[in-house]
C-alpha cells in the first residue's frame, strides 16, 4: 500500500481540522451523559408533570442503562458516522482533490484504507471516551455493572460501527454525490437491520451484534458468532472492493 503513512497523517489531520473528531465525540458523549441521567430521573420528571399519568415507570438497573446507551449509539451514532463518512471519497471526487492525490505514486488501496483507519480511530476515541463517562455516570447515579460484559458490549458495538463505516466508504466510491452515497449506505444498513429482526436468517446479520451486546449486559447467554464473523468478513470485503470500485470509475 504505497503512500500509506503520508496519507494516514493527512487523514488524521483532516479528522481534526474539519472538526470530525469534535462532532463524533460530542454526539457519543451526549449519549454517554444523557442516558444515565434520563434513566435515573425519568420517574421523577414524570412525577413533576401536571398531567396525571397512569404509567408505572420501572427502576432501571445499571445493565439496562448501559444497554440503553449502546442502543442509542447503534442507531443515532451510526447515523452520524454515515453523515461524517459519506463524503470521504465522493467529496474528493466531486471537488477534484482526488485527482491531485491519485496522480501521485500511491496505491488506490492506501487512499481508501487510510480514510477507513483514520475514521476508525476517531470512532474508537469517541466510543472510548463516551463509554467511560457513561459507565462512571451510571455507577454514580444508578449502581455498578459487570465491567467485563460492558467491555464486551462495547467491542461488539465497535465491530458493528466499523462494518457500517466500511459500507459507507464503498458507497462513497461509487458516487460523486455525497447525498447519493449517504442514501445508499443508509438503505443498506436499514435493510440489514430489517433482515436481522427476521427469524432464522436474522442471526447471520451484523445488526445482531447489538442484541448480543445487550444480552451480555442483561445476563443472557445467547450469542451470535455467525453475525460477528459475517460482519468482520463484510468489513474486510468492503475494504478490498472499495479500491477496485474506485479504479473502475473514471475520475
Amino acid at each position, binding site marked *: 500500500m504505497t503512500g500509506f503513512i*503520508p*496519507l494516514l497523517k493527512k487523514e488524521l489531520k483532516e479528522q481534526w481540522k474539519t472538526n470530525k473528531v469534535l462532532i463524533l465525540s460530542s454526539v457519543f458523549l451526549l449519549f454517554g451523559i444523557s442516558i444515565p441521567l434520563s434513566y435515573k430521573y425519568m420517574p421523577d420528571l414524570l412525577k413533576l408533570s401536571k398531567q396525571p399519568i397512569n404509567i408505572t415507570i420501572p427502576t432501571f438497573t445499571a445493565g439496562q442503562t448501559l444497554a440503553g446507551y449502546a442502543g442509542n449509539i447503534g442507531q443515532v451514532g451510526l447515523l452520524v458516522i454515515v453523515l461524517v463518512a459519506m463524503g470521504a471519497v465522493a467529496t474528493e471526487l466531486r*471537488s477534484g482533490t482526488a485527482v491531485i492525490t491519485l496522480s501521485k505514486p500511491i496505491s488506490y488501496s492506501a487512499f481508501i484504507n487510510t480514510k477507513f483507519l483514520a475514521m476508525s480511530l476517531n470512532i474508537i476515541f469517541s466510543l472510548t471516551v463516551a463509554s467511560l463517562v457513561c459507565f462512571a455516570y451510571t455507577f454514580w447515579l444508578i449502581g455498578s455493572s459487570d465491567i467485563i460484559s460492558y467491555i464486551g458490549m462495547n467491542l461488539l458495538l465497535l465491530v458493528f460501527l466499523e462494518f457500517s463505516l466500511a459500507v459507507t466508504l464503498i458507497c462513497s466510491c461509487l458516487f460523486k454525490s455525497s447525498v447519493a452515497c449517504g442514501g445508499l449506505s443508509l438503505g443498506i444498513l436499514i435493510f440489514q437491520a430489517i433482515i436481522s429482526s427476521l427469524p432464522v436468517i436474522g442471526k447471520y446479520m451484523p445488526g445482531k451484534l447489538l442484541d448480543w451486546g445487550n444480552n451480555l449486559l442483561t445476563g443472557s447467554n445467547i450469542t451470535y458468532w455467525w453475525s460477528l464473523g459475517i460482519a468482520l468478513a463484510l468489513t474486510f470485503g468492503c475494504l478490498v472492493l472499495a479500491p477496485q470500485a474506485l479504479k473502475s470509475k473514471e475520475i
Partner: protein
Amino acid sequence: MTAISARNLSKYYGPIKALDKLNLEVPENVVFGFLGPNGAGKTTTVKLLTGFTHPTSGEAWVAGEKVGHGNLALKAITGFAPDVPAFYDWMSGLELLQYIGELNRLSPKEIKLRSAEVLVLVELDKAAKRRVGGYSRGMRQRLGIAQALINRPKVLFMDEPTSALDPIGRKEILELILRLRQNTTVFMSTHILSDVERVCELVGIVDKGRLLTVSTVSALQKKYARSVFEMEFTENAAGFVEALKKVEWLADVALDITNGKPLVHVRALEIEKARKELPHMIGESGLTLERYELTLPSLEDIFMEIVKSEQRQ
C-alpha cells in the same frame, strides 16, 4: 528521445469516439500544445496519458513508461496540473507541497528544499503559509503547477492551464511554462490559440477525437502563409469586396476598417492565379492602393482552415 508516444490510442463511450486512433510522438524538452475546440478530445487524451482513464484500444508510453492505471513508476516521473486544481482548503500552500512531496517519496530534506524552490518559481513564496482556502483563482492555478513540479517530472501534463484566468494571470502562467521547458517536456491541452502561439514549439490539432496535424508553429505558418493577402485602400472598398467574393479561386473575403481605412483580407485557393490576377483586379477597380502584402496567418486562421478542410472531407 521521445517523451510521449501513443499508438492507435482510442477511447470510445458507446458510439461516441472521444479519441480515435491517436498516433503521436512528442520529443523531449518541448512545450507541446494540444489544440482543439471544446469537446475535441483534449481532456480525454490527458486522462489517458496520465492513467486516469482506460483506453478502449491502443497503447501509450510516457518517458519510457507504459501508461496504465497501476503504474506507479509512471506517476513518479510525471506531473499533472488539472484545469481546475482543487486542494484541501484547511492546508496552507506549504503544507500541501510537503504532503505532495511525501506522496512522491522525497526525503524530508528534499521536500523542504523543493517546496521552497517551486514556491519561488510560481511566485507563491510570500503566500506559502496562508490557507489554500483563501487563495485566488490565479494563485490556485499556480499552486496546481507547483504541486505537479515538486518531483521534478520528466513530463508535465497541463489541462487548460489558463482557461479560467484573467489576462494578468494568463501572462504569468505562460511565462512560467516558458521557464519550465528547459528541464521538462510540457504537454499542454488548450483551446486558446494565442497561448499556443506564445509558448509552444510543437502543436497538435485535434477535432472530434481525431488528430488532424502535428507540426511546429513556424512550419504551419510557412505552409499556410502564402495563401493570405491583405490590401489597404484609401477609398471605400465595399464594391471591390463584393467583386472578390464572386471569384471562385478566392475564399474568406473580409473587409475591416483600420485607422479609418478599408483593409481587405482574402485567402487564395489557387495561389499562383491569385498572385497573377489580384494586382490586375485592383488596377481595374480604380481604387488607390496603399498597401498590398502576403501575410503570415495567425494560428487561429490555420486552425480554422485545417478544421474546415477536415469537415469538407
